[in-house]
């Protein structure tokens, strides 16, 4: 098999039909001669997801596009139960890829409502034609969208692992058969990681294994529901996974290296700035109440000096409030060291970071209310450099706490 497209589903009947049709159109248009299979591991959907996939006919695609398949386009759907959804689904796709000896594979989210056939080409081509091992996506986003990625996950991953992967937590990505086989043998399936954030673990495993990385611009990232990604689960998937990865990869990240750019196909960053409604007051309230209510918890995680500084800024008024880059980086690194030391339950450590993150987001919104795309980029770059500059602080904490 040349190409494999994985579409993990679980109650996605509303959107998966369009996604599968876009995938088929993309495959017919850009890879007509390749042997291709679509694999759909379904987590026991209660709606008609599997029926929608089965009903999505290749003839519909051909009728609407005047494209004809030169080979049979296989679509395999299977049901799994038990375990963490994404993890089991990804393992099933990796196993299928290895069994079929697929040269290039891609995973597509069934919720990507704005997917176009081009996405398939942009994801698969660098792997299939240019021998990349992992291709992560880049999206056109609103300037206030994906702030957890821009304020913590990307800068910290970049500073520690020295690779500028803009979307380390990718729901769409492509990988080579070589990387797929490598992933199946790795401890990324370790239950100690909490069974969440598999997508992030794939990226980190590829970095740790020194695989050839690339990133490709896909287009607008549209969310089904803007508030659908709740903060705490999102932090578990990304920040929790990043903290967890620091232990097995200590030798890698503790070595001092300059950060490297990775080849990018298309724009590296596109931000839009249409007005959106954001409840800044609520963010501020959640931060200040979190700092006062969680004081005993924060005391066991943070150093006395950092905690005092955070308590001091929590007393400032909404207009004067500023969570500086330095203080934020110190906070993140102290949380990472405490996670390593397991000073309290690890999931509680991740949850305790959520109110402080809200404080940082509040500052970001205040400082970038009128900012242009370039100014936002400069802001993120400055934060990344602070993370890089203060990396020895994390090493000191890590070694001191050993």
């Amino acid at each position, binding site marked *: 098999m040349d190409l494999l497209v994985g579409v993990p589903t679980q109650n996605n009947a509303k959107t998966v039909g369009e996604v599968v049709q876009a995938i088929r159109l993309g495959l017919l248009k850009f890879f007509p001669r390749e042997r291709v299979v679509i694999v759909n591991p379904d987590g026991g959907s209660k709606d008609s997801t599997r029926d929608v996939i089965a009903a999505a006919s290749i003839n519909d695609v051909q009728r609407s596009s005047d494209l004809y398949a030169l080979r049979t386009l296989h679509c395999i759907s299977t049901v799994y139960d038990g375990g963490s959804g994404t993890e089991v689904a990804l393992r099933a796709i990796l196993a299928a890829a290895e069994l079929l000896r697929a040269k290039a594979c891609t995973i597509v989210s069934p919720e990507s409502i704005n997917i176009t056939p081009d996405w398939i080409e942009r994801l698969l081509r660098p792997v299939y034609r240019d021998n990349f091992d992992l291709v992560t996506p880049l999206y056109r986003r609103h300037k206030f969208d*994906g702030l957890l990625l821009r304020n913590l996950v990307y800068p910290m991953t970049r500073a520690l692992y020295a690779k500028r992967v803009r979307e380390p937590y990718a729901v769409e990505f492509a990988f080579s058969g070589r990387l797929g086989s490598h992933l199946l043998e790795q401890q990324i399936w370790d239950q100690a990681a909490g069974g969440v954030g598999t997508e992030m673990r794939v990226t980190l495993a590829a970095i740790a294994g020194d695989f050839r990385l690339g990133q490709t611009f896909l287009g607008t990232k549209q969310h089904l529901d803007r*508030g659908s990604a709740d903060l705490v689960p999102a932090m578990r998937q990304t920040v929790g996974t990043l903290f967890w990865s620091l232990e097995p990869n200590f030798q890698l990240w503790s070595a001092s290296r300059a950060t490297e750019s990775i080849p990018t196909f298309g724009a590296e960053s596109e931000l839009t700035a249409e007005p959106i409604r954001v*409840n800044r007051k609520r963010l501020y*309230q959640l931060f200040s109440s*979190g700092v006062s209510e969680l004081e005993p918890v924060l005391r066991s995680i943070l150093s006395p000096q950092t905690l005092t500084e955070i308590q001091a800024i929590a007393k400032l008024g909404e207009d004067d409030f500023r969570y500086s880059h330095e203080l934020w980086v110190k906070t993140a690194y102290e949380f990472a060291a405490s996670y390593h030391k397991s000073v309290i339950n690890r999931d509680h450590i991740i949850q305790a970071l959520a109110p402080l993150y809200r404080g940082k987001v509040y500052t970001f919104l205040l400082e970038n209310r009128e900012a242009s795309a370039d100014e936002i980029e400069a802001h993120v770059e400055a934060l990344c450099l602070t993370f890089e500059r203060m990396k020895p602080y994390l090493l000191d904490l890590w070694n001191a706490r050993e």
Partner: protein
Amino acid sequence: MWEMIMGELDHAMQELARNFAHFLPRLLAMLIIALLGWVVAYVLKISLRGILRIAKFDKLSDNAGATQLLNKLALPSSSELLSRVVFWVVWLGFILLGVQVLGIVGLQEHIARTFLYLPRLFVALLIFFFGLVAASFFSRAVLLASVNAGSPSPGLLATLIRTIIVIFAVTMAFEQLGLAERTILIAFAIAFGALMLGLAIAFGIGGRDLAKQFLERRFSKEKQEQRQDELSPL
């Protein structure tokens, strides 16, 4: 006459010497058992202390809030205290064996009764300790969840959870010790029942409209608005 007295005295002395000759080996046996017991107990104490340190038991104790309690009572750390308890339990066991060899009936019975009580004390302490651990864990989980959900009075909620679990653990510990079992159980049932009844009345009758408004605001409109205003973190 004099000869009779001397004869009786001689007989008594011989009897005493014979009894002592019978008792001496038993005493020596008891001392050897006690000494052996001390060595075994000491080795167990040292081993247990090492294992508890490797297992970071003191950290668990810190998290449970047990260390603070021990500090207030001027007691050593949890791992040290547990090692010492095990030392004394094991050594007392050996001493009891030794006393059985001596064959002193009354004393033997008393020590046996005391010794039989020790496992119950140990289990009660263990129940109390794990009760503290559970109380600390669940109250922190509730605190974090309520803070992140923006609920009112998260501290009060966490304290309530901690109190309920601690009361429950204390009740179980007292039941294990067999101390005022009925009184403790009845007190617990009354306190817990009163709390639940109070909440039921408050939400069910007294504040029905208020509760309705609160729940509607909390779980529908307000939640919807908040979600609309929420930024996607990923």
